[in-house]
C-alpha cells in the first residue's frame, strides 16, 4: 500500500465536474484507491462518494492506493489532483 498527501486547488473544491473527472480516471486503476479526508474515507472510483465528502478548496487530502498497479495509480491520481482536474 502506498500513500501521498496532496492539496485540492479547485476553486469550489471537489464539486460535480472535477469529481466526475477524478472518478472516471480512478475507474481505470487496477488498485483499490481511496482518499482519506479528516475522518472520512472516500472511494475515488465513486463520484457520489467524492461529492458527498464535500472536500473544499485548499484541503489537504491523503491518497491511498492498494493493489497491483498501486505506484502508477497513486502517481497518476496525485498529478491529476495537483493539475486541478481539468478546471
Amino acid at each position, binding site marked *: 500500500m502506498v500513500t501521498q498527501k496532496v492539496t485540492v*486547488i479547485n*476553486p*469550489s473544491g471537489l*464539486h*460535480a*465536474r472535477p*469529481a*466526475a473527472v477524478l*472518478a*472516471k480516471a480512478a475507474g481505470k486503476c487496477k488498485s483499490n484507491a481511496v482518499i482519506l479526508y479528516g475522518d472520512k474515507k472516500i*472511494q475515488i*472510483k*465513486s*463520484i*457520489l*462518494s467524492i*461529492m*458527498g465528502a*464535500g472536500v*473544499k*478548496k*485548499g484541503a489537504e487530502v491523503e491518497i491511498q492506493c492498494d493493489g497491483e498497479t498501486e505506484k502508477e495509480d497513486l502517481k497518476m491520481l496525485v498529478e491529476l489532483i495537483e493539475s486541478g482536474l481539468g478546471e
Partner: protein
Amino acid sequence: MEQIHVDKTASRGIAAALVYRYLEPDLMPDTQRITKEQVSEEKKKFDSARSAVIRELEELAAGNEIFAAHLEIAGDFTLQDAVENKIAEEGKNAQMALQESIDEIAAIFEAMDDAYMKERGADIKDIGKRLMAKLKGVKRPDLGDIRSEVIVTAKDLYPSDTVKLNPAFVKGIITEEGGITSHVSIIAKSMNIPTLVGVKGILAKLKEDCMVCMDAGQGIIVIDPDEKVRREYKEKEEAYDQERARLVSLRNRPAVTKEGKRISLCANVGNVEDIRNALPMNIDGVGLFRSEFLYMENDHFPTEEEQYQVYKEAAQLIPDELTIRTLDIGGDKELSYFEFEKEENPFLGWRAIRISLDMKEMFKEQIRAILRASAFGHVRIMFPMIISLEELRAAKEIVEECKQEMDTEGVEYDRNIECGMMMETPASVLLAEEFAKEADFFSIGTNDLTQYLLAVDRGNKKIADRYSYFHPAVVRAIGQIIKAGHKEGIKVGMCGEMAGDSSAVPILLELGLDEFSMSAGSIDYVREQILN
C-alpha cells in the same frame, strides 16, 4: 386579474406570454413487494434502465460538463450497490429500491452546509427521474417541443429540462422551488431569460393557457392581466430590451465626466465569481471585496493559505485595483463556528476592526494572505469601522509586522501596498483631516455612516422613511470627507448603497468623489449618469 409579489429574482427582465405548465408524469414507484424468485428479474430491470439512461446521457455528455457528471453518477457503483442491495435483501421491487436509494443519496447532499453542494441533490434527483421514467416506461415532457412564445412554470427545472430550452420561445420562467444559486437560476441568467424562483403555490394558481405578465427585477407576477396591463407589459418589455442594449453599448466608454474628470467605476464583490460577473461591464477595479463572506461561508476561521488562494485569484482577475476590506463581522453578521456574546447594541458593539485588533493572530493570518496576493496585482488593504487614529496606527503596525516577517521568510509582496480606511463613523468624519495624513485612501461607507449620523436603525421598518443618505447632514459629512482627503492628495471613493444610486451621481460628482463602487447590477446605470 391577480398580482403576486415575490422576492427571489434569479434573472431580471420583463415578459408577457401564455403559460406553459411543465408537469412531470407520474413517477411514483410501484409499491408491490417481490418474492425471492423475482430478485434477479428486478435486478435485470434496473440494469437495462441504467444502460438505457447511460446511452442517453452519453449523447448529452459530449461537450457538456453537467451531463458528463450525470453520466458518472448514473454509472456509479454506489448507486447500483444501494439499489441491488434493497432488491436482494429487503424484498423491494426495482422502482422502490431506486426511489429510496436516490432519496438517501440526495439527502446527504441536501444536508451539507455549502449552498452549492446542497443544490447538487437536484442533480441526483434528476438522474433518479430519468431512471424511474425508463423503469416505468413513461416519456417525460420535453421543453424542446415548445414552438410558441410562453412563460414556463414548473415545480423545479433540472439540467435535463433546461438543456432543451430555447430562449426564442421561452420568454420567462417561474418555479415553485429552487434558490438563486440553483441550476435553473444559473442557466436563466446566462440565457438572459427573466426568471423568478421559489414561488410557492404558483402552479395551482395558473391554469393551462392563461396569460401571465412578469417583471422579474421587481418580483411582480400578474395572472390573467386585462388588456391594459398586457399592453403596458409589452411596452415595458420592449423598452427594457432597448434600454439594456443602449446601456451595454456604453460599456466601452471610460467613465469621464463632461468636465473631463476620469472617474473610477468599481464593483463591490463578495467572492471571485462576483468579479467574473462584473468584468464584462468594463470596470476599473474592485472598490470593496467583502472578505467576511470567506469567514461566513466556512466552518472554521479560514487559514492564511485558504484566504491567499482566493485573494490571489481575485488579484489576477482584476489587475487594476483590488480593495480588500479586512474582516467586518459582528453587528448583524455572525459566524457559525464562533460564539459572539449577546450584546444590547450589536451595531455599537464588538465588531469589525475592533474584533481584528483584539484577535491579533487571526488578523495577522488575513493580512499575510492579502500581502502575499499583492504580488499578483494592485491590491489595497481597507480597514472598517475606524474611530480613532490609535486604531488606524495599530492596524498599520500589524501590517508592518507581517511585512517584516515576510521579508525574513523571503516571501514576495507589494512593498508599496496602500492601507486605507472606511469612512463610516461620525468620529472618522470629524477627524477626517487627521486621518487623511495617515491613511492612503478613503472609502465612504454610506450605509453605516447614515445610520450612525442620523441615529436611525436601517433595519427598522417603522423609521425607514427617516433613513436617507440625502439628509443634509450626511451630504455635508461626505463633502467634508472628500475635501479632507483631497487636501492631502489621497483618493476618495464610496462603496455604500449611495454609490450605486444613479440619482445620487450628480451631487457626488459635484462634491468631487473620485471612485464609485457598487454591486454589478448598478454599474451600467451609474456609468450613463457620469457620462451625462
